[in-house]
């Protein structure tokens, strides 16, 4: 049963989705970047267009020309020049480009929310007149649908011709295959890339301007709509433009046709959701069905080692001093986490969010940082944890009896684990882009079909938490949260240490190499996803209790993208980084207007180009340089132990080529050496697990000698205990 009228009504949306798909494909085929920021750019341009028409009262045609011919391509050119060209120059991995585009998305969302607020606007102007023409009989089609369809056809043909028939098309393929090589053969690679970006963002702008009047204009809503059109490019396997266009029209028309049916009961509810969410369902189904996307380049986008640069904790012969220092740092961090207990009640309530978010971020450290899988669906797991624990506490989950609040949280989190396991299955064979999109789609589907459904998410109430009959005060709740965070940290620690940790890192660094020596890659990936889901679920449960209500917005699919970016920025493989990221976001959200934390994370994400390991790795590197500097000013350079030569060969192409902050062996640049650090007093510094050669008394620099004598005089004058010689100290440190 098909209805022509409904089909025609669907055409307009289909054409817009097709335009979005064309834009994505153009950017991808010219630059090898799947532009996750497409939705953000569309939203930004839509807001700019509305601003010009509604607030500044410019004529519509002028506003459209400015928005689409100046602003949109301008964004593309800026992005190419300042974000993606530097990445392409240093042959960044596809994973890094993906994260960069996420950073752009987050940044743009922050800008939009900062300027126009998070509220929705329903007065977005329509470019085309609101009239229709008669096709045949009583059947009419809107001018807008006709115009949009025309644009799709024209663009497809033009782009197809350029790609197939012109020298420019050949240049594009050359640049995408090997940018450096293409440049050596005289192809203006930068110009080709810039043209691709400008075309892609213009399409994005067009998508936004056309979509806005059909829906309400909200920063997150419109962005998500555009992200859903990724279904189209997945169907096209990232390659074929006609397939993308046909899929877009097909899904939209099907979705429109669904409107003629009504069902009752649960099926009816599912149908209602499908009627407006077919794209997201199609995205998930297509991702599971399409065996392999035709990714450009080596398709190494699963190599997240590039933004998690740290290896395993040293396996042997770590000095006791190092452990002491480690514990000192941990104690300090713990003390900081206790500080909110002294806050005023309102501030304490804000601080509730920190351990909860921290747990969610830790779950991403497990999946992305340690086992190297790109996962963009964490909000789904967190939300499920929240929802399940609430339902358990309310006693309306599968007829189970009500479980006291605290235990319901743990049980709810455990119930999320199987969901993680199921999500992990696609991850066995998928990596990089495909996996990222799949996990995103899972999160989005869960959000639409569960969190936003009244059957599941309404009528939930939060009881005060009780532990053995004692009602938890706010301070006690915060302490409870810290205990949960501690459990999460313990899990993370166990996943990072010993045989299990090494095996996980091996999978992250090189999964085929890991399989070659018997590492059970499959089960380890599943394990990472399962554990991570449970940890995220616990975080979600805590988050709900922190904000006193369950709101689907807290676990919207875009949250996952924002959270993921935050974790990468603060160091994807750093547990401390995850907690700092949580504290950072909460603090900014409390102190600054809405959207500020998003903006800040976006800016930091774009800075990732200069610090590939995230903030955590940058801090680690700075500490080392500082230690070196100290050592150099203490110990005579001529006394240095032979320097370990930092030859930086990128094995398998994973290691970032820019910074050498990769571990214990050496630090590139600067004349300083670790040898110096080891030879002297600072052999206690956590630099490496190398056996310090039994160092004879190091000869000190004049400055060092002066300092030592001053200290000795001071000690003598106070008649205190004897100051030990540095060398003696260092011997004691190493076992």
């Amino acid at each position, binding site marked *: 049963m098909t209805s022509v009228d409904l089909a025609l009504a669907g055409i307009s949306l289909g054409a817009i989705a097709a335009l979005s798909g064309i834009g994505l494909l153009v950017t991808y085929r010219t630059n090898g970047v799947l532009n996750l920021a497409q939705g953000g750019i569309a939203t930004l341009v839509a807001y700019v267009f509305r601003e010009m028409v509604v607030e500044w009262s410019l004529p519509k045609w002028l506003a459209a020309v400015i928005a689409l011919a100046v602003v949109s391509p301008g964004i593309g050119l800026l992005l190419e020049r300042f974000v993606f060209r530097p990445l392409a120059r240093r042959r960044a991995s596809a994973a890094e480009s993906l994260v960069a585009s996420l950073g752009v998305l987050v940044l743009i969302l922050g800008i939009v929310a900062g300027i126009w607020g998070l509220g929705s606007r329903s007065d977005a102007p329509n470019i085309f007149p609101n009239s229709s023409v008669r096709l045949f009989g009583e059947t009419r089609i809107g001018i807008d649908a006709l115009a949009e369809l025309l644009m799709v056809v024209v663009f497809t043909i033009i782009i197809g011709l350029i790609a197939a028939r012109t020298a420019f098309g050949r240049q594009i393929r050359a640049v995408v295959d090997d940018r450096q090589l293409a440049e050596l053969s005289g192809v203006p690679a930068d110009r080709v890339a810039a043209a691709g970006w400008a075309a892609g963002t213009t399409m994005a702008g067009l998508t936004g301007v056309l979509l806005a009047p059909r829906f309400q204009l909200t920063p997150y809503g419109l962005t998500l709509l555009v992200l859903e059109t990724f279904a189209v490019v997945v169907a096209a396997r990232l390659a074929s433009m006609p397939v993308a266009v046909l899929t877009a029209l097909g899904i939209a028309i099907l979705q429109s046709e669904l409107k003629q049916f009504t069902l009752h009961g649960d099926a009816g509810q599912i149908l209602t959701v499908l009627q407006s969410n077919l794209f997201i369902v199609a995205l998930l189904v297509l991702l599971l069905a399409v065996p392999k996307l035709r990714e450009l380049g080596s398709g190494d986008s699963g190599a997240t*080692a590039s933004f*998690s*640069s*740290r*290896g*395993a904790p*040293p*396996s*042997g012969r770590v000095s006791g001093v190092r452990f002491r220092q480690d514990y000192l740092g941990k104690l300090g961090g713990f003390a900081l986490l206790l500080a909110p207990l002294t806050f005023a009640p309102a501030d304490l309530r804000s601080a509730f969010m920190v351990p909860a978010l921290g747990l969610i971020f830790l779950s991403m450290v497990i999946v992305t940082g340690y086992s190297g899988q790109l996962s963009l669906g964490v909000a789904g797991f967190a939300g499920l944890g929240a929802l399940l624990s609430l339902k358990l506490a309310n006693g309306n989950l599968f007829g189970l009896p009500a479980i006291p609040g605290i235990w319901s949280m743990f049980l709810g989190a455990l119930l999320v684990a199987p969901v993680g396991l199921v999500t992990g299955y696609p991850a066995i064979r998928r990596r990089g882009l495909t996996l990222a999109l799949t996990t995103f789609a899972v999160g989005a589907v869960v959000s639409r079909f569960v969190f936003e459904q009244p059957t599941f998410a309404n009528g939930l109430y939060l009881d005060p938490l009780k532990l053995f009959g004692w009602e938890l005060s706010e301070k006690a709740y915060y302490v409870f949260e810290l205990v949960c965070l501690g459990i999460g940290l*313990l*899990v993370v*620690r*166990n*996943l990072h*240490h*010993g*045989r*299990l*940790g*090494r*095996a996980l*890192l*091996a999978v*992250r*660094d*090189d999964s*085929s*190499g*890991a*399989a*070659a*020596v*018997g*590492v*059970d*890659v*499959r*089960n*380890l990936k599943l*394990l990472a996803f399962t*554990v991570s889901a449970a940890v995220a679920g616990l975080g979600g449960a805590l988050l709900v209790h922190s904000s006193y209500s369950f709101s689907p917005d807290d676990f919207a699919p875009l949250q996952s993208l924002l959270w993921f970016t935050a974790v990468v920025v603060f160091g994807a493989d750093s547990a401390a980084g995850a907690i700092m990221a949580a504290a950072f976001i909460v603090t900014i959200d409390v102190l600054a207007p809405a959207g500020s934390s998003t903006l800040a994370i976006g800016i930091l994400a774009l800075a990732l180009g200069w610090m590939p390991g995230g903030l955590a790795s940058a801090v680690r590197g700075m500490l080392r340089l500082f230690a070196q500097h100290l050592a150099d000013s203490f110990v005579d350079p001529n006394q240095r132990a032979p320097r*370990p030569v*930092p*030859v*930086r*060969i*990128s*094995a*398998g192409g*994973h*290691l970032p080529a820019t910074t*050498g902050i*990769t*571990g*214990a*062996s*050496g630090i590139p640049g600067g004349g300083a050496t670790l040898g110096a650090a080891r030879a002297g007093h600072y052999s206690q510094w956590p630099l*490496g*697990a*190398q056996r310090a050669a039994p160092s004879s008394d190091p000869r000190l620099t004049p400055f060092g000698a002066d300092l030592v004598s001053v200290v000795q005089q001071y000690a003598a004058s106070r008649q205190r205990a004897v100051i030990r010689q540095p060398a003696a100290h260092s011997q004691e440190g190493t076992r």
Partner: protein
Amino acid sequence: MSRGVLQAVGLVRRYGGLTAVDHVDLVAPPGMITGLIGPNGAGKSTLFSLLTGVEQPDEGQVMLGTTDITTMRPDIRSRRGLVQTFQVPSLFPTLTVADNLLVGAENRRRDYAGGLLGLSAQGRGRISRSAERVLERLGLAPKGPVIQIVEEVLDSLGLSDVRDTIAGTLPTGALRLVEFARALCAQPDILLLDEPASGLDAAETAKLSELLRRTAADGVGILIVDHDVDLVFSVVDQVYAMVGGRVVAAGDPETVRNDPTVRSVYLAQAPLAAAGQSGEGR
């Protein structure tokens, strides 16, 4: 010692209309070095992937000892004693050399649950002696022998100096050696080496062939696929020569070298007669 023989029985692999591997039979016994040579496109790499489990054959079987491993995943094969190295060394660039080797040594077991509960070998240092003994009884504390294997391999390959170096910072020659060491740590019955000499200079190649002989003398079977005919003929006990997806000659190096088909294929490429000596130039 009952080590497994690696055996390919009637292996066939087709890509569309092209038959890349056409009814190939091959036997790599333990304690011997077997070579697999052939010009580009002869199907060597495809055969290699069939043996390692990266690809599945359309027909035929791969046997390890008496077990049919045709459909097993690479990691399972590896745990059963069939360990490979890659054309491009595939180390774990963020781990130290010792940790790379440990990964190899540790993964003949699959249970990771102990680690999740914090019962990792790492944690052993922090628990008391008696608890340690209990863990050893339960089979949860394999640290002793594992670390011993790693130290032995490090010593015997002269890698002790780079023990704690991050693998990603090593030059190519060293990477090959570390990858080989990692494979040894997995205690293989059969080692599959894909072009182990590519990227090595003459001295390193000579060192490699010495190493291969030593390993084989320990009872490990080795299968080498390499373009470097010199290396292959200088170390192997038996050779298989492939052309167009088929094995055209097999047997001891002398027989294969004098085989008319092999000669005609290689005539344009390398003077085989001199091969025996040049591999051991130093």
